[in-house]
């Protein structure tokens, strides 16, 4: 249940909210700002009686259990002047909505020669944490990054959830918005300014460092941050970058960092093959080649579905110790090429 009464704010201009609250706050503010915004999904209305009270049942809609038509309806509504936000619950359910997202939302602006536009947001959750197994937990964000015409966002802090969701709702392109469910109840300071926006396509340097650049998004940003603390104790200074947006991808921030540190380690929970880490490694191997002093490393989930068993679910996700070890080895290794 959302708990986003503005009164929770003090004079400080910030409130302590968890991610779920930050999301609801963003929805609330944007629905207040723009009467074209509506939310739809299975249980969206049941969970938000106070939204119905404020905005009416027309703008807060439970749907039949039918993801394809939920998504298609959002696409049609967006083409016709509304600003739909749909909650598809869990990322694997996006497969039912894949035609509407990929063939319609992603392509029809282009195919119409720019006549149509599709300002909509498709939300879903994924990631380890609830032992729900592979039909609920599948980090498939890379599929939508690969798809032309879509934008993709996957924040890691409550403030970014608020700021990026608001930007997504205001964006004129379709935005696929992923919530790492492992972060849902994590708290953080969130600005109460209803004009607080985080621009889509801007990464953020979480921590500065000189020896190695760690790039990640969602839950594993914290893995990087924790590893950086341990690495510091080993005398290794790690810069940590939170991508926040996956498309457009802020490669400039990464490249600037790599030019400084000369070493790059990419961390993601998603399986590795053709994932975000692959894309970033490719960009670095092309654009920052002469600055690289060591092989580019990826630490990713395995090429496997996620298991339900807690033990396996946790083992799937890159671990702080693994990362510390990999980075130490990387920094310790003399660069073969320079040495040769």
């Amino acid at each position, binding site marked *: 249940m959302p708990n986003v009464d503005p009164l929770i704010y003090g004079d400080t201009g910030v409130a302590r909210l968890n991610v779920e609250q930050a999301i609801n706050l963003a929805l609330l503010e944007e629905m207040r700002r723009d009467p074209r915004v509506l939310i739809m999904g299975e249980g969206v209305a049941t969970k938000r009686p106070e939204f119905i009270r404020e905005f009416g049942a027309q703008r807060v809609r439970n749907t039949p259990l039918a993801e394809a038509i939920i998504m298609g309806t959002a696409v049609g*509504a967006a*083409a016709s002047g509304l600003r*739909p936000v749909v909650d598809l619950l869990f990322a694997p359910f996006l497969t039912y909505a894949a*035609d509407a997202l990929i063939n319609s939302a992603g392509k029809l602006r*282009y*195919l119409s*020669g720019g*006549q149509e536009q599709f300002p909509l947001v498709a939300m879903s959750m994924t990631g380890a944490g609830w032992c729900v197994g592979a039909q609920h937990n599948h980090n498939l964000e890379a599929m939508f990054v690969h798809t032309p015409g879509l934008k993709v966002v996957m924040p890691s802090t409550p403030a970014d959830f608020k700021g990026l969701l608001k930007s997504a709702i205001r964006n004129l392109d379709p935005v696929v918005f992923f919530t790492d469910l492992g972060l849902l109840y994590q708290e953080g300071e969130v600005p109460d300014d209803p004009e607080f926006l985080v621009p889509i396509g801007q990464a953020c340097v979480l921590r500065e460092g000189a020896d190695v650049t760690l790039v990640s998004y969602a839950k594993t940003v914290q893995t990087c941050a924790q590893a950086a603390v341990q690495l510091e104790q080993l005398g290794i200074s790690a810069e940590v970058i939170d991508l926040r947006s996956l498309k457009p991808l802020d490669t400039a921030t990464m490249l600037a960092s790599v030019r400084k540190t000369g070493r790059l380690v990419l961390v993601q929970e998603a399986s590795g093959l053709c994932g975000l880490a692959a894309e970033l490694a490719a960009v670095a191997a092309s654009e920052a080649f002469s600055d690289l002093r060591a092989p580019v490393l990826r630490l990713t989930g395995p090429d496997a579905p996620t298991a339900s068993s807690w033990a396996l679910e946790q083992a799937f996700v890159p671990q702080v110790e693994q990362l510390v070890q990999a980075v130490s080895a990387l920094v310790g290794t003399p660069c073969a090429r320079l040495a040769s």
Partner: protein
Amino acid sequence: MGPSSFSMPSSAERMHWLEMMLLIRTYEEQLAELQTQGAPGTCTCVGQEACAVGVVSALEPRDRILTNHRSAGHLIARGAQVWRLIAEVLGRVDGYCKGHSGSLHISARELGVVLTSTIVGGELSLAPGVALAQKMGQGEPGAITTVFFGDGAACEGIFHEALNLAVQWQLPLLFVCENNQWQAMVHRLETMSEPAISHWARGHGLPVQRVDGNDVEAVYAASRSAVAAIRATGQPQFLELITYRQRGHYEPDDQTYVSAQERAHWLERDPIQLLRARLLDEGGLTEDLWHQMMRAAGEQIATAVAQAQASPWPTAAQLTEHVYA
């Protein structure tokens, strides 16, 4: 409200329908001809002109239309500039979609045609959202949405989902299934029972009319009553138009898989010939007028082809335009 509550279309109106159906057919045959000269193939609506003209004539400019790969009739009946349609098919910059679409995804905002989907069912996927926006005050008051789709599309799950949503959410949406007996190379009776489409629709509890799709007057009457009911009640309606795909699925198509008997049966019921015979009978049309009409259609299309062919090709600079806002 039955069709009887409308005044019968005037003779002039029906002459206009005949002209429009003829223009559509001439357009389609011209494109088929262009295909043999190297232009991209198209899915022609030859044999289904009465569906397009009958339904679209019952709509108003404020209404919205979504359609499928066999959309030329709907677009022309809606008043599309034929040369810009041809330019689009040929991939030129003056096409409705600057050559991005080709024949298969044409939209034309100025005509209220939101979408041609060549994903079978894509039109059904988006249509409830277009109608929802109308219901929620976007666009002109009282407007409705019409979605054209085939018998094949009715096999896709999205058909079921779209009908259910339209009924539950009470959307101002007219479903028009042009049941032309074929789904690409598969006869529809290989995929469903004879009355399946109407039965499926009735299972959703909305009003369903099953109409001779080759009789433009019947199509018009059914459409008028359905449209009026939607405007009056805000609730969806369903038309199944029984018709036939005369030229095959996609140019070229030798249709060796089609039984000669079936084809012959339907060619005898050609929608243009039906209306023509009726008007000749009634005296509004003469053989002379008919030949004038044919000539006019031929000339209009020939001019359009020339104009379309004069339109430039897009340059590679256009390759990444209009992907994002």
